[in-house]
Every structure is written in C-alpha cells, then in structure tokens.
C-alpha cells in the first residue's frame, strides 16, 4: 500500500487557491478598504487611499439613504421571507396530498419560475405591472379594484417586488419541504388517526414539529438570499420611486461602481455581512434548542 502523503494537496490546490485568491483574501481586503477613503483617485494608484479607521461606518450611520436602503431591505426580507416560506410550505403539503393527481405536472409548473432568468422575469413583470395596459391591473379590475401604479407609487413598489419574489422563489423551498415531508414516517399519522386526530391536528402536532429542522434550513437560505436583493429593483425601478425600493446591495453597487466610493461601499458590504452573521448565530441557537427539545 503506497499512497503519496501529499496527494491530497494536489487535488485540493486548484479549488483552495482560487477560493483563497478570489474569496478569502478579498474578504480581508474589503475589511481593509472599508477603513479607507478608497475612491476613483486611488483606483489608479492605491497609495492615494488614506486610512480612516471607522469613519466610513460612522458616515453610514449618518447617511439617510443608507438607512432608507437598510429599512427597505428589512421590509423586503421580513415580509417577503415569511410569505415565501408559508406559500412554499402550503404548496408542499398540497403536493404531498394523497388525493392529488397529475402530481408531476403540478410540481413542474410550480417550480418553473425558479429556474428561469431573474432579469428576464423582472422585465416581463415590469409590463404585467403596467398601470394602464398591465395584466395584473386588468385582472384586478374584474374585482372592481381601481388601477394601481405598482412600480410608480412609493407605497406599492416594494409590495410589487415582494409579490414577484414570492412567485419566483417559492418553488425552491417547496421542493425542500417536500423532501422533508416525505421523510416523515406514515405510521405517525396512522396512530394519530387511530387516536381520533383530525387533519388540522395532524398537521399541527406531527407535520410542523417534524419539519422543524427543514424549516430552519429553508428560513436561513431564504433570508440570506433576500438580503441580497438587487436585480429586481435594478431592472424594474432603479431603486425608485423616491428610493422606495433602494436595497442595500443596490446602494452598495451605486456607491462602488457608479460613484467609485469603494471604501464607503466596502463598509456597507461589511454591515450586510455583519447582519447575516448575527442571523446565522440566531439560527444556530434555534437549531440547538430544537435538537435538545427533540431529544427529550
């Protein structure tokens, strides 16, 4: 038996080196940049950047547009996230129902939006939302609802993006929930029925607790994804009207690549990162608590 002691290095090197150069070192570089006034002048000559310590972070805290972007992003995540998860859970339970026929057809239809190109879909929805000839207002008028200027009215623009996001993304979580549902042993439901539990009770006392680990996973990937909201406002509203759909990543992009305020943009990126880490820790705590509860 002769295997080279260092063979693993050869196999790991290409992936780890690219991850190091294009991912891990840039994280450190971004941290460093966030402490400087790196701008368009520093672009040609890195020496032009001056060290500012936490000045950019202070600037962010005093920047009303940053707060607006932060608020909008939280709005999108806190309303869109739970809505997406509820719809995907309901769809998964429905797809798992024994009486359902044409199961594969429905699963495919529900999943189609997930695989399609976000930018193309956003372009299509932009027209569906059109205040005059858009299909959505036309259908709503059938219920006597007055035309809504979905993307032009600051009140409605964010709900419009949320609706699109739910439509686009629920199918992904649905499949993960479906896998979770199919892993629940049928005998649990059988014994519950023998004890006289009705359908709602079975869902509440068996399905939901059994799905807890899956739900945490789905929640965290949905939230992480939604915090990175970018293409929808970029294509549909450019962050408007009146900055009602300006998201953190869109603001970061504008600061970094339109105004070349790369130091400031890096500090915004790190604030986003920090928020995600806090959420990750919360998720870990919840997971541990549930695991402990499950063992008792």
């Amino acid at each position, binding site marked *: *038996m002769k295997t*080279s002691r260092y063979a693993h290095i*050869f*196999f*790991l090197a*290409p*992936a*780890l080196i*690219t*991850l190091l150069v*294009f991912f891990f*070192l*840039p*994280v450190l*570089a*971004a941290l460093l*940049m966030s402490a400087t006034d790196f701008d368009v002048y520093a*672009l040609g000559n890195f020496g032009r950047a001056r060290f500012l310590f936490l000045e950019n972070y202070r600037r962010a805290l005093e920047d009303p547009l940053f707060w607006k972007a932060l608020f909008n992003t939280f709005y999108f995540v806190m309303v869109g996230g739970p809505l997406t998860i509820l719809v995907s859970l309901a769809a998964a339970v*429905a797809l798992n129902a024994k*009486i359902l026929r044409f199961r594969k*057809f*429905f699963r495919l*239809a*529900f999943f189609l*939006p997930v*695989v*399609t*190109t*976000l*930018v*193309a*879909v956003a*372009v*299509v*929805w*932009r*027209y*569906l939302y059109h205040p*005059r*000839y858009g*299909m959505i207002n*036309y259908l709503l008028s059938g219920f006597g609802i007055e035309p809504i200027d979905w993307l032009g009215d600051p009140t409605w623009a964010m709900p419009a993006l949320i609706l699109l996001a739910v439509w686009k993304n629920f*199918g992904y979580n649905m*499949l*993960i929930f479906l*896998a979770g549902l199919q892993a629940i042993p049928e005998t649990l439901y059988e014994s519950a029925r023998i004890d006289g539990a009705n359908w709602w009770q079975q869902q509440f006392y068996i399905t939901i607790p059994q799905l807890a680990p*899956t739900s945490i*996973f789905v929640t965290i990937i949905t939230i992480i994804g939604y915090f990175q909201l970018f*293409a929808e406002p970029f*294509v549909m509203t450019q962050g408007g009207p009146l900055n009602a759909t300006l998201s953190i*990543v869109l603001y*970061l992009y504008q600061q970094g*690549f339109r105004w070349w305020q790369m130091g400031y943009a*890096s500090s915004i*990126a*790190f604030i*986003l*990162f920090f928020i*995600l880490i806090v959420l*990750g820790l919360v998720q870990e705590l919840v997971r541990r608590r549930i695991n402990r509860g499950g063992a008792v």
Partner: protein
Amino acid sequence: MKNKLWSILFHLGMLLVAVITVFPFWWMLCASLMPSGEASDFPPRFFPETFTAEHYINLFSRLNLGRYFLNSLLLALGVTLFSLLVNSMAGFAFAKFRFRGRTPLFAGLISAMIIPGQVTMLPVFLLLNKMGLLNSYFGVILPTMASIFGIFLIRQYLQGVPDSLIEAARIDGAGEWLIYWKIILPLAKPVLVTLALFTFMGSWNDFLWPLIVLTREDLYTLPVALSSLLGEHVQDVELMMAGSVVTVVPVLVVFLALQKYYLQGIMIGGVKE
C-alpha cells in the same frame, strides 16, 4: 359525495396556482409574437391576433442578440467545465483522503458560505483590473469556478463510494490521478451532471458579476444586454418580450431535459446535517 366535491375543489385550486406560475411565461411568448403596439392595447390580449417574427429578426439582425447569446453560452459552458474539474478534485480529496486538518478545513469552508458575495465584489474587481482580466471571459470564470457548494455536493456523493474500490486500484499500482480519472469520475457521473446543471444555470442566469466585469458592449451576456436594452426600448413591449424569450428558453430546455438531476441536487443540498 362530499369527498368527491372536495377533491374537485382541491384540484381546481391547484390548477389556479399553476396558471399563476405559468401565465407570465405564456404572456411573454404571446406578446413576443404580436405586431408592434398590440401588447400595449387595452384590454390586454391573451393571444396574438396576427403572428409575426419581426421582433426576433430585429433582435438578431440589428441589435446584436446573436453575439450576446454566444457570450452567455460560452461563459456558461466555460464556468461549468472548470467548475466540474476543480470542485470534483477537491470533493474527492475531502471524501477519500485522510489528512491532518481535514474536518476543520471542511467545516470552515461550509461556514464561510454565509459570507455574501457582495463583500468580495470590490476587491475582486480591483484584482481583475490589475490582472488585466476585466472585459474578458476569464474575469468571470476564474472567481466563480471554485464553489463551496460544489465541493460539498461532490464530497457527499463520493462518501457513499466504497473505499475498497480505491484500495484495490492502489494495490494494482494505479496512481492517484489515474484513480480519480478512471474510477472516481465515472462513478460520480450522476452528481457531476447535477453540478454541471446547477453551474450552467447559475452562470446563465447570473447578472451582478457579468454586469461589473463585462462592461464592453460586445461582451454583454443576455441578462446584461436585456437590462441595457430596456433603457432604449422600454416602449417596445413586444421586442423586450422576444428578448426575454431568447434569454429564458435555453435554460428552460436544459432544465426540462435534466430535471431529475436538478431534484437530486436539491435533495443532497437541502437535507444536509
């Protein structure tokens, strides 16, 4: 009797949801085939009155869409090829070699998945600028080819492959590269297809990274081209819809052909513990 009624209602409800998920694609396709102006009629039409391919012809002959299509395709194929090689090698090492620091290294990679790509975006842009790789395919391929998710996917799959196969080959004197190339890769075919599918679709649909790296117009990918086309042609609904069809159809076809593998990927990725 009551059960039958309930079943019909249930199926009608499901059908309604399916209509909602599919309808935007239906309208996109119909509007792309309408003569100019028909898609902005009121009340809106659910079907073209007369069919025309003029917008598709216009897109490919005048608006350079063929070039953008080619850019998207070459990039997606390039990223996929490199990603398969690099991630399968690393996945193999994590699954089948015992070395010091393996567990913490892997755990570290997994927890790094929480770092949002936007954090690294600015320094990587500067790095590519220094390397002269802005406005080149490699500027998009290099930073995206190694993926932690890809390594994870391959590793999970290969852990199910018995060590005895590899041991036997080693006793026969096969080198590690030969084992990887002749035994591991053929065995891992299903998961490689899954990874290829995810990578191809991810690259085809990606927007932010090509938007930043490929600023020269002749290098645009379809999503970037579509978004810039919107600036000038926002009134040409039918034209924009034709562009959307061209963007969406290839990825739909690839998905429909290989959906079995896509679902397996979600199972491996989703039921991790």
